[in-house]
């Protein structure tokens, strides 16, 4: 009896809960065009992103935005593909920079060239207003498929000044080396970097307790190879001839340099030192176990949040003789329109949002508030503000000089995986750098050729 009563009460409570707490009805204001936007800005960015979209709505009274957070990992891809194939895609979506060519090739993204023209922004003029590599990422086979929203200049080089000072004071650095270490300038060349590393890496018996630098630890192995490959003066893709050049001599040289570190200090030991909780707040540089690190612009924020007392020096990346000074590349995110959107009214609404977010003073200013990254639009008022902060200004400087972005071609994801595996095999000693990169290049070329041939066979 008591049990039945309990179950009844429970069911009644549940029913009441379901009725009282209910999702709101989507805004039924008939005059407004509904713009559905899928975005990956969760965590600390959620609030500021929502605010920026409210600002857009305030300035454009005839558009109502409905935001949908979609986590940025492969599950995002699954959601987007099913939506396009099922013809229930949103009006606008954030696309990771390097993915644009891939998705454009498959027909997932709408061609924006004419839309931009109709919206009053001549594409040719627009091109000049964006940083060149940011623009290049969105431009595929002569048409524009996305507009860059944020540009992350990769990377600046940081070193832990206090750790260096203490090491020298404690006599851990032999005097000839110590004399050549300029604590304020930091390592300027690869030779300097090697010197610093040898001086500052420290063993206690068998255990590696501090390492100077880990060349393949710059946001993943593939990204590390891109970084050093370009710094060494190499190239990864020849767009004119559509050739994958992973085995470019300078890229091979970069990988060979990386492997010298692997050989000097057992890869496993370095990996052990590096393996952390897998998150930003617990990385070896912040923990004081790694003296030097290359950071993305979000690193400034991380340092401020998790290691406010770390005395860090900052400079552009070191580079070898014959390499590229102040080397950097951009990744970043873009905004695009799914190809299935046919309704002209909503297309216009979408392009207005995109232009506002990526290429307007207010929009770009709010973009920075969300990501702490930079806009890709040169006229943005943000850059004047940024130049007042010396650290941010350093990043702005390398963004202005930046020449590279990841290869704009439809085998990008595959290529990155191949490079990742090549670096892994090389530093593990399974393959020589030349072999590893030859293989990566050959495999990716075959993959790319297949995709391109397949496309040509279609109407």
């Amino acid at each position, binding site marked *: 009896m008591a049990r039945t009563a309990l179950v009844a009460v429970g069911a009644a409570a549940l029913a009441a809960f379901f009725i009282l707490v209910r999702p709101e009805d989507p805004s039924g204001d008939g005059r407004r065009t509904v713009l559905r936007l899928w975005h990956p800005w969760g965590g600390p960015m959620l609030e500021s992103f929502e605010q920026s979209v409210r600002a857009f709505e305030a300035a454009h009274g005839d558009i109502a935005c409905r935001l949908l957070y979609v986590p940025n990992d492969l599950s995002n*891809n699954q959601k987007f593909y099913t939506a396009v194939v099922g013809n229930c895609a949103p009006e606008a979506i954030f696309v990771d920079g390097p993915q644009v060519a891939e998705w454009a090739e498959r027909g997932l993204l709408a061609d924006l060239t004419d839309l931009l023209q109709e919206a009053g922004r001549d594409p040719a003029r627009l091109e000049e207003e964006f940083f060149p590599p940011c623009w290049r990422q969105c431009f595929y086979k002569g048409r524009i498929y996305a507009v860059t929203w944020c540009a992350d200049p990769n990377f600046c080089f940081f070193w832990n000044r206090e750790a260096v000072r203490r090491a020298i004071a404690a006599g851990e650095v032999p005097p000839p080396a110590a004399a050549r270490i300029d604590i304020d300038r930091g390592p300027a060349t690869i030779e300097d970097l090697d010197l610093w590393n040898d001086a500052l890496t420290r063993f206690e018996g068998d*255990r590696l307790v501090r390492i100077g630098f880990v060349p393949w630890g710059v946001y993943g192995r593939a990204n590390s190879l891109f970084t050093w490959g370009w710094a060494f003066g190499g190239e990864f893709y020849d767009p004119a001839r559509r050739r994958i050049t992973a085995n470019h001599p300078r890229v091979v040289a970069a990988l060979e340099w990386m492997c010298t570190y692997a050989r000097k200090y057992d890869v496993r030991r370095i*990996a052990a030192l590096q*393996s952390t*909780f*897998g998150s930003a707040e617990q990385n070896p540089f912040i923990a004081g176990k790694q003296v030097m690190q290359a950071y993305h612009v979000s690193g400034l924020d991380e340092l401020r949040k998790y290691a406010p007392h770390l005395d860090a020096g900052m400079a552009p990346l070191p580079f070898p003789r014959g390499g590229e000074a102040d080397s950097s590349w951009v990744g970043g995110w873009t905004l695009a329109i799914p190809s299935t959107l046919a309704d002209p009214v909503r297309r216009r609404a979408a392009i207005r949002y995109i232009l506002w977010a990526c290429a307007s003073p207010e929009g770009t200013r709010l973009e920075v508030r969300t990501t702490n990254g930079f806009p890709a639009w040169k006229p943005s008022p943000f850059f004047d503000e940024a130049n007042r902060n010396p650290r941010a200004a350093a990043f702005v400087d390398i963004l202005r000089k930046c020449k590279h972005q990841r290869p704009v071609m439809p085998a990008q994801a595959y290529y990155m995986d191949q490079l*990742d595996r090549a670096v892994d*095999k090389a530093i*593990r000693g399974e393959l020589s750098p030349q072999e590893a990169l030859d293989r990566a290049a050959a495999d990716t070329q075959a993959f790319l050729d297949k995709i391109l041939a397949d496309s040509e066979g279609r109407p």
Partner: protein
Amino acid sequence: MNRSKEWRAGLLFISPFLVGFTLFTIYPVAASIYYSFCDFDMVRSARPVGLANYANLLKDERFLRGLWNTAVFTAFTVPATMLTALALALLLNMKLKGQAFYRTLFFLPSIVPVVASSVLWLWLLNPDYGLLNTLLRPVLEAVNAAAGTALRPPGWLVDPDYTKAALVLMSAWGVGGSLILYLAALGDVPVQLYEAAEIDGAGAWHKARHITLPMISPVLFFTLIMGLIGTLQYFSQAWIMTPNGQPGDATLFYALYLFANAFLYLRMGYASAQAWILFVVIVAATVAVFRTTRRFVHYGGEGT
């Protein structure tokens, strides 16, 4: 009851499944078979290429590696998890005070969200300061001192030789589900059987072997089959902890490569071929298990 009546009743009872099967299984399965013979990127129309996908898979290093890794991993994980769960269930079935509390504790890992437990394990398995190695180190040092060996605590997730072991450990720890099943099955064993055996002077081992195990064998069989089917498709944990199967391809599991092919490289045709090869492997393994364990499974109701 006559034959045709049982037949009609049978179909009637399984009708929910038949409806679901017709609506949601037949077309997708047929579609994926078709795609496995095509080049298909999910968006544009599929182009038939005959057996090319299958042929290329057999030459694909990552496919072969995935198959090997998954087979080895399954061979270790399924027995390990079953034994762990069974041992725990037997422990938790004893008449001790506070069992309700203990059982809840052992069930906890299964309900903690995967993202949280993965991060925790990254810490536990850290070769330098992770809890596991911190506990192992003094033990190994003692052994070294006594036996003159030079053993070191393993690198776990950063050492290709130990990553699979690390994942097996994680699986053994997450056995809450099987644990509950075994506890339920143990509870179903009639007490009279034990009492009768005790009267006959049977010891603990005899009771376990001749009463407990046969009586819970149907559920053991269930976890064996489901473990086999599930582990051969092992994916989520590995994806979170070692995406891409690094280091050194040691944890490149079959399903990881399948997923990459489908949603990263947009080679759905190729991925479909992979899926169907895995299907054949799983069916073969399951049939083998069914056949070989048939005589060990004792359905008290003289079922099947």
